[in-house]
């Protein structure tokens, strides 16, 4: 019996040690960035190797905000992510609703075509043709292109989540609404949509994470129009500008500006985050 208790205590100790070690490794880079952003420029250049700043200063933020255009980048990021989140909520709930409840010829064929696109895995390799198509429609020089592509491009993962969620809603709701004379769209608009709050939260969080963190597509769409760059692209631009060595302070402050909203949203909605990410991917 005694041996048993000892064994248990030891295994608990081992578990907590491993978890704590990984915890430190997990948050260290984040702390490094956030704390580093408060160091003075001199301190960064001569003592970039300390974790905690000797003196907390806000100079980097001021400089990033005023001189390095980060106020504009932040606005751009908010605009892009906000539009994508709103647009995707509408487009994905509609698509999920139509595929789940709608009846029309060829529905299953279209659904198969949509789903089978997942097996063609080209990733960022299709970015150039996508860009050229955007150019054809004249939406290749601003974030509107990214927004339109993300909203109407129909993310298969989101579609799966939406369809699966709407499937759990009882048909009786549709039927009684139909008896009241509601059309297909009215049922979506007045009956189904109000029931989708948890689904909307999941999609909103998935899309916020994706669009706020996205790099390559917004990079391509703002190459010729730096004023429209979102935060992530703006920060990377500093790195590749050749003045990387002297702009550590701006990169750290910029990264913090990009990280903080994400972390705050995550800490508040961490449950939805984790559930949403797994719901989407395992089904896909």
């Amino acid at each position: 019996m005694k041996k048993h208790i000892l064994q248990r205590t030891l295994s608990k100790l081992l578990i907590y040690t491993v978890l704590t070690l990984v915890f430190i490794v997990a948050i260290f880079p984040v702390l490094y960035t956030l704390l580093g952003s408060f160091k003075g420029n001199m301190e960064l250049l001569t003592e970039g190797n300390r974790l905690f700043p000797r003196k907390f200063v806000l100079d980097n933020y001021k400089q990033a905000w005023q001189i390095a255009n980060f106020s504009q980048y932040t606005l751009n990021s908010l605009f892009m992510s906000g539009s994508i989140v709103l647009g995707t909520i509408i487009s994905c709930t509609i698509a999920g609703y139509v595929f789940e409840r709608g009846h029309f010829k060829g529905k299953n064929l279209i659904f198969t075509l949509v789903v089978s696109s997942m097996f063609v895995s080209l990733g960022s390799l299709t970015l150039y043709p996508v860009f050229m198509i955007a150019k054809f429609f004249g939406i290749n020089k601003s974030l509107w292109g990214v927004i339109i592509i993300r909203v109407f491009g129909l993310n298969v993962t989101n579609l799966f989540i939406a369809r699966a969620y709407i499937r759990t809603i009882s048909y009786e709701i549709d039927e009684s609404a139909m008896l009241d004379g509601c059309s297909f769209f009215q049922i979506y608009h007045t009956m189904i949509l109000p029931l989708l709050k948890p689904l909307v939260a999941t999609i909103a969080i998935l899309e916020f994470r994706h669009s706020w963190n996205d790099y390559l597509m917004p990079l391509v769409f703002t190459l010729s129009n730096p004023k429209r760059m979102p935060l992530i692209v703006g920060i990377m631009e500093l790195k590749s500008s050749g003045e990387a060595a002297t702009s550590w302070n701006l990169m750290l402050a910029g990264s913090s500006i990009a990280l903080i909203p994400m972390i705050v949203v995550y800490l508040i909605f961490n449950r939805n985050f984790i559930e949403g990410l797994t719901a989407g991917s395992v089904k896909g």
Partner: protein
Amino acid sequence: MRTNPLTKPKYDPNSVQAVVMLAPMLIGFFLFTYVPIFYILRYSFYQSNGFTETWIGVENFVRIFTRDLPYWKSLGNAFLLSFGKLAVEIPLALLLAVFLNKALKGTGFFRVMLFLPAIISTAITGLIFSLMFASFNGIINEMLLNIGWIARPISWFSRKWSAMLVLGIASVWNNYGINMIFFLMALQSVPKELYESADIDGISSVRKFFHITLPMIGPTFQVVVLMAIVGSLKMADLILASTNGQPAGQTEVVMTYVFKYFFGYDGRTVSVGFASAMALITGIILALVSLVYLKTSNKLGHSMD
């Protein structure tokens, strides 16, 4: 697509509404998913700088297979980096999931915190790690100097292997969380009774893990690993944001290599046709990898039963 229900009464108005509601997304989907694939198919037989184009038959493919060693090197790097880091990432994610599944005190906190890196932009991850591992004034070098593991600062990004090591660490840091959560979800669906009866038989935890846990989460494990492999092979942001292929293209991966030819990025000339051909071949290779993986992992799964 616009059908008026009044003139064509044989259509159910609700079906018409359904089609109209879906139409914007369908158009967008075919435009931004299928058309690009045909675009790539077509242009892989052309030489094009984005403005003019000439049909050159299979010349692009001949060039890839006979004269473009850097493409194959970048493909090799993608495989090396992916399998190297997954060899650490997958066991780590599984171990953490098993630990978090023990329902000990504080696991809620650990779950939230250990998942934190997964919400952070891959590009920012690349940037932060390249700052932390900087040769001059980098915090990692300083820490290693202080413990006495190294005598002089290491120039991490000036040699291939050390640069690949940093990329691997950064990628594991960014991605283990999502796999950990997948495994955790799978573990939570394993019936508790199985463990209880094993406890009665006095079976050790290690044997329980290999004889109950692993077979029970097998299907999830198979899918998660497949997604991790394909996802890692498609890695691009991390490399662009940290080494950008340096030193001398030795850390270039296939996605960044092709990307640069498409857009004329990083000093390359725009070669849409050549890039399309490379994209096509890469797509085929990725599909083959998935296929081979599924075949072998199915076999392994059956031999375990």
